[in-house]
């Protein structure tokens, strides 16, 4: 059992080592040898845990094991332990985190080469993995919360890593502001999470998952509603759902490997993990479940349409992440917890690959992120191009890729549950997803080169492309773990996870229906890709909404049709309706709360007159009230 402790604490050791290197300024200017040493050391600290988890996975018999390190502290009648629970869900998540994590560490050695804060970067990354493993493997909510706060803190530090850079966002000017925004939004979620923990504690005086789930009958329905609602609010903060999602696009201010690791593959999925972990509790509250499904699909749709209009390569991917997370919450909301985790897995593969690919492009173009100034990179960056294409197809849900199976699984389960409206919107969103994915790919890699010719882009070193290839391959074949019933009777991931997550759906679709759904999904994806390809592979520069009218003549009729019927309405929706909501209302609300608090603080300042006599007067008032209240009544 002790191997679990080793695997959880190795990243912490890595953090201390890298911090030490950072403090002692071990790496001088451009000393790539020392850089490699630090990088490889940190990568090993993640890769070894991955090896351990993989070994455990190979010999896993489905039984949950709990390993207790020591009693952390006692609160009231119960004691909170530092103990880790290894069951199918946590093991699976831990493998994703360490697996994708070590690939991204490897990539970062190349990406961060020559950066002043090289060792500091790896220290933060290792600390992040440590916190994430605590979040996933904890057997009680307090330890989980330690990880929850820890990943938030690391994300905060990493978003603001290049703190002196300008960053263009909504109401923010620098990366530090972006980090602050992320942190404040997450605090709102954290508050809800703590409140939920206190509610649970009040009822059953315990906070470990086993006690909560085994005593779930102790909660009455109002209680369970509030608990699940508060947990869900906590998850919307961390997993960027409506209304707390606007921090994620701004979080792209961090270095790209961070976006890949934290803001795509791992941290943002922790809300989905936690909901799945507490799934027996959630299915007791149908109201919350419905809310989750609606919020999920609404987020998926809105974020996808916004993704259509973005020109920053990372912003497109960020909105796409928000949108895909919406799909996962949709799956949670309809009770298909296994499908949600399945989508988490494939999404981790292809989105990490896309982000790393975009990092490779940004690197090659000297920090250029605007896709209008890219194009034609397929020839100069063949490896990045190939892997990016594969991952894009997976994101778009091209048949037989990993993303296809997982997204189809979610949609099929939605259809199965009888929520045809949700399914319909999900399908439309799938179309938009395919559309903006192809737009992104085409504008970046195909067509003529629109970047400055003096930039001389080149392929990234092998250290960076190797992870791309691995992730690309996984995006292609990763779907094998959750093949639909028509292909393989026993869905592997569903049955693997069945021991740790709840399941509500007993009835199954007929095979014929399932084939039809698969077919529809394929057609939608291919249509979206084709439509987008036909528009953007011919257009070169005019990709902004206002530019659309100027190119109307030169287009085929079909393009105009697509443009008028699909692109324009959505772009209109996104830029005229949703973006203002995004900017003004949600950001305004969050900023408003913040600034009104600060304003209130300023008002309180006026009471602080500095005159001792006034203070004495206030003390007397307090005295009169206190005596009056306590002694008179």
């Amino acid at each position, binding site marked *: 059992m002790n191997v679990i402790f080793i695997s959880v604490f190795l990243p912490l050791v890595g953090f201390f080592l890298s911090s030490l290197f950072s403090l002692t300024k071990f790496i001088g200017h451009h000393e790539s040898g020392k850089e490699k040493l630090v990088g490889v050391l940190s990568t090993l600290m993640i890769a070894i845990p991955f090896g351990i988890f993989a070994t455990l996975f190979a010999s896993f018999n489905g039984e949950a094991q709990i390993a207790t390190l020591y009693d952390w502290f006692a609160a009231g009648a119960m004691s909170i332990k530092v103990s880790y629970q290894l069951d199918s869900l946590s093991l699976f998540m831990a493998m994703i985190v360490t697996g994708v994590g070590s690939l991204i560490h490897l990539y970062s050695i190349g990406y961060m080469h020559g950066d002043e804060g090289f060792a500091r970067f790896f220290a933060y990354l290792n600390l992040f993995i440590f916190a994430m493993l605590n979040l996933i493997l904890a057997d009680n909510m307090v330890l989980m919360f330690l990880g929850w706060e820890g990943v938030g803190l690391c994300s905060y530090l990493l978003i603001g890593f290049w703190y002196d850079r300008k960053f263009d966002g909504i109401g923010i000017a620098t990366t530090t502001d972006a980090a602050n925004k992320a942190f404040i939004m997450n605090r709102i979620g954290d508050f809800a999470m703590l409140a939920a923990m206190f509610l649970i504690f009040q009822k059953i005086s315990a906070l470990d998952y086993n006690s909560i789930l085994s005593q779930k009958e102790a909660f009455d329905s109002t209680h369970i509603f509030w608990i699940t609602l508060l947990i869900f609010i906590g998850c919307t903060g961390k997993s960027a759902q409506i209304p707390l999602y606007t921090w994620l696009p701004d979080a792209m201010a961090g270095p790209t490997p961070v976006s890949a690791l934290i803001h795509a593959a791992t941290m943002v999925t922790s809300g989905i993990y936690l909901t799945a972990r507490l799934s027996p509790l959630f299915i007791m509250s149908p109201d919350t479940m419905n809310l989750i499904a609606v919020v999920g699909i609404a987020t998926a749709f809105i974020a996808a349409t916004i993704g259509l209009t973005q020109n920053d390569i990372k912003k497109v991917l960020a909105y796409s992440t928000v949108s895909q997370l919406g799909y996962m919450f949709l799956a949670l909301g309809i009770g298909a917890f296994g499908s949600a985790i399945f989508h988490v897995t494939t999404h981790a593969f292809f989105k990490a690959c896309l982000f790393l690919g975009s990092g490779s492009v940004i690197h090659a173009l000297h920090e250029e992120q605007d896709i209008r100034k890219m194009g034609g990179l397929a020839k100069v960056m063949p490896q990045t191009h190939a892997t990016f294409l594969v991952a894009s197809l997976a994101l778009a849900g091209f048949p037989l890729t990993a993303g296809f199976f997982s997204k189809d699984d979610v949609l099929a389960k939605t259809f199965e549950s009888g929520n045809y409206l949700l399914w319909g919107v999900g399908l439309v969103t799938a179309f938009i997803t395919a559309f903006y994915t192809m737009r992104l790919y085409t504008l970046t890699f195909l067509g003529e080169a629109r970047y400055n010719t003096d930039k001389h882009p080149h392929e990234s070193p092998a250290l960076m492309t190797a992870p791309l290839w691995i992730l690309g391959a996984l995006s292609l074949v990763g779907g094998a773990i959750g093949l639909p019933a028509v292909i393989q009777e026993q869905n592997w991931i569903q049955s693997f996870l069945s021991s740790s997550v709840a399941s509500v759906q007993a009835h199954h679709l007929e095979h014929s229906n399932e084939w039809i759904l698969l077919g529809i999904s394929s057609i939608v994806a291919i249509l979206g890709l084709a439509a987008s390809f036909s528009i953007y592979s011919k257009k070169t520069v005019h990709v902004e909404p206002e530019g659309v009218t100027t190119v109307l003549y030169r287009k085929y009729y079909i393009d105009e049709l697509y443009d008028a019927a699909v692109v324009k309405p959505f772009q209109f929706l996104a830029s005229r309706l949703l973006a203002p909501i995004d900017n003004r209302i949600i950001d305004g609300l969050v900023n408003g709360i913040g600034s009104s608090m600060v304003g209130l603080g300023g008002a309180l300042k006026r009471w602080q007159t500095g005159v001792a*006599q*006034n203070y*004495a*007067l206030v003390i*007397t*008032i307090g*005295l*009169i009230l206190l*005596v*009056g209240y306590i*002694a*008179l009544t």
Partner: protein
Amino acid sequence: METVSFILFSFLGALVMVGSIGTVWSRNPVTSALFLVLNFFALGGIYLLLEAQFIAVVQVIVYAGAIMVLFLFTIMLLNLDDEQALKEKFDLQKGFGILLGGVLLVEVLYILGLKINLPQKSTTLTPVEIGEAKNIGRELITNFLFPFEIVSILLLLAVVGAIVLAKKNFSPNT
């Protein structure tokens, strides 16, 4: 006897009040200090009425005798005879202060006006005997020995503190 002590108490009480108000009201610091002396004497008288002879004597010796003399010396040394400088305007804050004081007074008087049963202490000594210096002294070095001793630390602290704050030579020793 009851009426005599009531009349005496009223008279002394009135003096205490006149003394306190005069202390605050008077603009001349010396007058102010003299009002305070009046206040202390009257208070000593009230202690006597309560058959606390020792306390009454201590009150007069220590406060009216020692402390007030020191006060007056300080005032005279500082030459605080500029009455205009000490003049304070009757401002809103002062009025508010008086109002609050009044509210507090009414509140406490009202609560104390409610019927309250006070506990009776059983003791073998008569009230006169309790107030004697001999008995107070005995209490102080038997039951109250610890507080009596530990107050010396308080005094020690006051001495050290006064030295630190008033030390003439401001170059620190190392």
